[in-house]
């Protein structure tokens, strides 16, 4: 074992032996299938959601929207200035010029007043009704898939084996931060601590919160679960949380993609498509050996 593992991929080494040693079956079919259904669902939910947001590009705190009083904490808008129309974004009273992206955007000479630009919405033109059709279709798909994944991952041990936090995770956290900052990745069967936090956070905090705040906005669901909005601080607060969680999910997506590119996109993609993942040869990297021990 030791000698095979130590062999470097030089001309003399037997590639077949090395392949057997380092390729492992890492992701079950349930994980892979649900991953891609989520990816597609979240893509459409994001872009249709931004379209829905454009119908009222403002966020409030409380039960209702302040028209005669001010409970607006976020707003995207357009205004006429001496330099022509400008788009702005206002966060907690601080105004930023976001012309070209938020508030006022479009092809040169054909700019229009709209919250998010047309490249970020489905449909690209303003159409609230169609966006809602798309949004709720994928809301059903996303929620169903989340439940399927939860059941499958409980049964096949993915939750317990790969995602459940352990004491060891806490100990290795500082080193994990340093390794990620240096873009130095260890390819092991196990998720590292930051991965567990990111995936666990999305699956057990962000997505459930998204579903709960989504339901809280439904007037019919409010008659079934009237405590939901009381708990969340009112329907308009629920809407604000819904939007904030969207921003966090987008942030997760960006980091997720960057990490995949940095850690080796082919290997990472293979594992989430076929399940097979090439790990670092054991004992080549002292740190990873210590950790997996």
């Amino acid at each position, binding site marked *: 074992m030791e000698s095979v593992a130590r062999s470097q*991929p030089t001309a003399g080494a037997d590639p077949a032996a090395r392949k057997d040693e*380092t390729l492992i079956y890492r992701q079950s079919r349930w994980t892979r299938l649900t991953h891609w259904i989520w990816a597609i669902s979240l893509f459409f939910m994001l*872009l249709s959601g931004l379209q*829905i*947001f454009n*119908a*009222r590009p*403002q966020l409030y705190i409380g*039960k*209702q*929207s*302040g*028209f*005669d*009083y001010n409970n607006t904490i976020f707003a995207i808008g357009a205004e006429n200035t001496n330099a022509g129309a400008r788009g702005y974004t206002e966060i907690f009273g601080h105004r930023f010029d976001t012309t070209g992206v938020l508030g006022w955007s479009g092809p040169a000479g054909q700019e229009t007043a709209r919250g998010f630009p*047309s*490249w*970020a919405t*489905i*449909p*690209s*033109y303003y*159409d*609230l*009704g*169609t966006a*809602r*059709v*798309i949004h*709720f*279709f994928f809301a*059903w798909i996303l929620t169903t898939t989340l439940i399927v994944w939860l059941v499958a991952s409980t049964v096949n041990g993915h939750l317990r084996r790969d995602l459940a936090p352990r004491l060891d995770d806490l100990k290795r956290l500082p080193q994990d931060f340093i390794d990620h900052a240096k*873009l*130095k*990745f260890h*390819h092991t069967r196990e998720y590292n601590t930051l991965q567990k936090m990111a995936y666990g956070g999305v699956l057990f905090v962000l997505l459930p919160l998204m579903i709960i705040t989504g339901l809280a*906005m*439904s*007037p*019919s*669901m*409010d*008659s*079934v679960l009237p405590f939901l*909005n009381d708990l969340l601080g009112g*329907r308009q607060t629920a*809407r604000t949380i819904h939007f904030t969680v969207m921003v966090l999910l987008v942030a997760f997506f*960006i980091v997720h*993609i*960057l990490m995949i*590119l*940095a*850690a*080796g*996109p082919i*290997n990472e993609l293979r594992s989430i498509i076929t399940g097979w993942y*090439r790990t*670092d*040869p054991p004992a*080549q990297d002292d740190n990873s050996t210590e950790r997996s021990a």
Partner: protein
Amino acid sequence: MAKFEISRRKFLTGASLGASGIMLSGCDAFDSQLSIGSGLRSFLENANGLTYRAQRLLAGRDALAPEFTEADIRQPQRPNGVTAPDDDVYKGLLANNFADWRLEVSGLVEKPLSLSREQLMNMPSRTQITRHDCVEGWSCIAKWTGTPLSLVLDQAVVKPQARYVMFHCLDTIDRSLSGDIKYYGTIDLIDARHPQTILAYGLNGKPLPVENGAPLRARVERQLGYKMPKFLYKIELVDGFANVGGGRGGYWEDNGYDWYGGI
């Protein structure tokens, strides 16, 4: 293992290429498949039927929308849609303070009705402080007073084959080649008979203002604002959407909104 390590330069190049790919993809790619009646759109619209059945199952007939207190009424009810009908018939009725206005109840009923505002106001009333949720995303809390729609339906005696209540309105919402389109919409008989579904003539303790739908508007508290027509003059019991505008159950529905507005 060296093979899977990537230099910083390669990493940044790859990252920016990936990001720009996302930016450039644009979202007009889907536009052409999303028009009303297209196969893909009709398929996606099935989700609304699923939502309707699921919410009816969970909420049942009588689960009540949350009601609020006087302290929650912090501003006038924000109007939406048509706020000042430019229709001659409407303006004539308004000039006479709706003394000549009547609510017709017709269609699949045993006893068609024609009710004056006084007759409606002499019927038992219900007052409720509820939150109006607009499809656009905003909410506004107000106190509504009106006649429960179920009482009017009972008086007219609904025929068994009736399935929906259709609201006919006095305001022109749109113009087409075949003439002016006045607002119209439908709800099912479960919502029509819901205890909080009222034909409102009062708002925040005063007569319903023009901008909010005088002399009479629907309140359907478990659905969004577009399901609560204003400026009512006729209630028609129907068994389907075949003769309702474009056949999808309402003005906004004919323009792409889902018929069920409980979400």
